[in-house]
């Protein structure tokens, strides 16, 4: 049977905040745009973002984008690219206003302006008093934003392929990406989508760790597609563990809880963050707070019968504040931890949350294929959101900068694609060999017979990542981890499906996701093993100090032979002076 083909100006893979904000710009400009998502768009993981989106609106306390920029550079442990960071912090302001105009139901101040709360790592005046920069819709900001963007895309008549799974990028003979092979999950039919421009907006890969705040769908699909296309991933060793996941379960308790005045205590009731971050205390950067919690537990100060977590105390706040500002958290705590935070503290422990690394892009969202910083990029291929690395988060992302990143760079990618398509509107002939290769990825799972199950190997893999690439990392442990993940990758060929139906076969999509996760997991393990310093979320007790002389550079990882290369941090901002690296204290 002939493979069905469809043509669009732009193909967007992923329907979270980045994909939908890009799609909206494109559809508003009357481009023919297809959005492919393996779930119905409002199920994308942006929906779970709680606390809010940073923008220096100065609605509550004095603020400006330059302070926001300083905090982001410092938060990144000086690994973020300062041109991209300046751009993001400036664009934050019009981006948030545009969202509000599109209908996002932000919480409000008595003067009618958007409510803003304090979040970790925020300061006024380049490291001074705490700032209040995070624009919030109660503690459901991601939900409010994702639904609004979906609604506006319905209005703009964006074409959605709901419940289609992206298998692989398709190139032409010159190596330019000209579309993707996708799979209709409901029918099992493949479809070839040809496009003059392609935007990867496939989100994160938190499922590579066993305990995670991430959804089942966050399997790093776009990152793995890029690896298979022979392109690199950047800074994958930097994975954020959010300090406050519900202990033993991983569901997120927003940093907004601490922003509203909640704080962490150990088994003796001590507010231990005073010891680790005397100024910012519980609102220190996430990497700092996560390490502090793990250290408390290791030193025997943990709570509960297993002494394996700490407590987040909220019950000193009024019930009114909790009901108004943190209603979703109250609900989650009741359901998953069995506690009402109005009365009792919430048991918490760090949970795998966010990958700072990803597909390397310049600050225009264009994918960069090499370690040369010479402006070279792949024509027509863009990436935005958590799957991309611009790099605005460097070694550690600040709370409230994730929604910001996806929205700013999704919007920007949309604008840049509009300009690109004006001059490059013709479809290039695709390389049939590339199509065959992608089809081969599907055909492999038709193999029948005895073998491992997807879930067996997935469980083994996720446990390995958790044990060998967690909050604290030492050489031997990581080297062993790399070896184990390589063995797991070998075992992939022994995995067989027992279900070969064409109709809604989630066994098949989970197998494809497992391949993606293992590819991405290995990029994390290998990149981490080779970075011999502690910076941001990458914390090595055997190399406890940041080493700017040797390591103020981005890691690039290619799948072929697990090759690594490095490139310098872009320390020159667009219009202001560079922030030179300083010791990072909170």
């Amino acid at each position, binding site marked *: 049977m002939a493979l069905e083909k469809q043509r669009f100006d732009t193909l967007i893979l992923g329907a979270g905040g980045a994909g939908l904000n890009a799609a909206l710009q494109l559809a508003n400009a009357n481009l023919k745009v297809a959005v492919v998502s393996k779930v*119905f768009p409002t199920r994308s993981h942006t*929906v779970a973002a709680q606390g809010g989106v940073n923008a220096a609106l100065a609605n509550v306390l004095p603020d400006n984008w330059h302070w926001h920029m300083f905090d982001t550079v410092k938060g990144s442990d000086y690994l973020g690219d300062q041109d991209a960071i300046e751009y993001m912090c400036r664009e934050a302001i019009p981006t948030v206003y545009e969202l509000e105009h599109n*209908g996002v*139901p932000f*919480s409000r101040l*008595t003067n009618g302006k958007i409510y803003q709360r304090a979040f970790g790592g925020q300061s006024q005046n380049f490291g001074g008093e705490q700032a209040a920069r995070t624009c919030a819709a109660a503690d459901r900001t991601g939900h409010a934003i994702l639904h609004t963007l979906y609604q506006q895309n319905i209005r703009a008549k964006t074409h959605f392929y709901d419940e289609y799974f992206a298998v692989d990028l398709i190139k032409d003979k010159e190596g330019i990406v000209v579309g993707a092979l996708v799979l209709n999950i409901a029918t099992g039919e493949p479809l070839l989508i040809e496009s003059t421009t392609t935007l990867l907006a496939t989100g994160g890969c938190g499922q590579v760790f066993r305990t995670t705040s991430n*959804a089942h769908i966050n399997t790093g699909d776009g990152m793995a597609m890029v690896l298979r296309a022979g392109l690199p991933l950047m800074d994958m060793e930097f994975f954020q563990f959010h300090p406050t996941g519900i202990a033993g379960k991983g569901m997120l308790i927003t940093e907004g809880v601490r922003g509203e005045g909640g704080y962490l205590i150990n088994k003796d009731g001590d507010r231990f963050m005073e010891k680790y971050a005397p100024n910012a205390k519980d609102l220190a950067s996430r990497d700092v707070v996560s390490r502090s919690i793990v250290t408390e537990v290791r030193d025997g100060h943990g709570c509960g019968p297993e002494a394996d977590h700490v407590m987040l105390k909220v019950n000193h706040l009024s019930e009114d504040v909790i009901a108004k500002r943190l209603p979703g958290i109250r609900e*989650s705590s009741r359901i998953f931890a069995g506690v009402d935070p109005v009365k009792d503290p919430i048991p918490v422990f760090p949970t795998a949350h966010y990958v700072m690394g990803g597909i390397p892009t310049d600050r225009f969202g264009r994918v960069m294929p090499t370690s040369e910083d010479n402006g070279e990029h792949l024509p027509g291929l863009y990436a935005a959101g958590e799957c991309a690395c611009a790099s605005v988060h460097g070694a550690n992302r600040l709370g409230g900068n994730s929604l910001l990143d996806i929205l700013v760079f999704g919007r920007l990618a949309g604008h840049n694609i509009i300009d690109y398509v004006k001059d490059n509107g013709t479809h290039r002939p695709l390389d049939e060999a590339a199509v065959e290769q992608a089809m081969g990825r599907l055909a492999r799972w038709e193999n029948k017979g005895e073998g491992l199950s997807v879930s067996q190997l997935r469980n083994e893999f996720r446990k390995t990542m958790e044990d060998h690439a967690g909050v604290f990392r030492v050489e031997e442990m990581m080297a062993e981890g790399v070896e184990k993940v390589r063995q797991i990758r070998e075992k992939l060929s022994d995995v067989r499906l027992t*279900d070969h139906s064409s109709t809604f076969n989630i*066994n098949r999509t989970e197998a494809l996701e497992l391949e993606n996760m293992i590819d991405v997991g290995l990029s994390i393990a290998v990149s981490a093993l080779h970075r011999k310093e502690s910076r941001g979320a990458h914390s090595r007790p055997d190399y406890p100090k940041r080493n700017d002389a040797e390591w103020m550079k981005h890691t690039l990882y290619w799948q072929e032979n697990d090759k690594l290369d490095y490139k310098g941090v872009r320390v020159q901002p667009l219009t202001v002076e560079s922030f030179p690296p300083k010791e990072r204290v909170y």
Partner: protein
Amino acid sequence: MKFSVYRYNPDTDDEPYMQGFEVELRQGMMLRDALLAIREQDESFTFRHSCGEGVCGSDGVNVNGSNKLACITPLTELKEPVVVRPFPGRPVVRDLVVDMSQFYTRYKQVDPWLIRKEPMPEREILQSPEERDKLDGLYECIMCGCCSTSCPSFWWNPDKFLGPQALLSACRFLADSRDQAGEERLDKLEGPYKLFRCHTIMNCVEACPKGLNPTKAIGHIKAIMLKDAI
């Protein structure tokens, strides 16, 4: 714990059937955990799920006769054997997966986006906390479909009655002080079916996993219409 789950694979089964499974109970287990445990026993067992914390709205199912989100339904609340079926009234794709396209079409029919006719200000459109409070109980909808697929009026007239979810969304925009298309919105809801097929049976209120009240929202729309008519 004993489960009886609905099975139907159009590729291999002539007709649907119920299949028994047993799952070992752990503390704090949700229905989704049990469904995943069943998948470990039989990987062909199919259902949608994602976030695991009740915000993405993927895993709505019918359990012991009520529509619920599997990931936030504790097993301790359920009677044995736990009978799990797909949402009623929707065409079954496979096992617990139903075709929700008609449900989404009804949603799109209410123009679920903010309509502003005046030019936008440079900054945010101002809205007082009291005006914003009116959106509470409306904007939190996660489109899981528990309400509309438990509504007898939606079962009988899914082609004409908009159903509780779409009407809750209509109310969300009518209630937004920033929206400037109230009259058009109300006009679009006129007629005997779209809105008025709601007979206040209130299954939707019972079913909503987010504690929202579509019946109240529908009553609110009716009240505005009445006020406008006088």
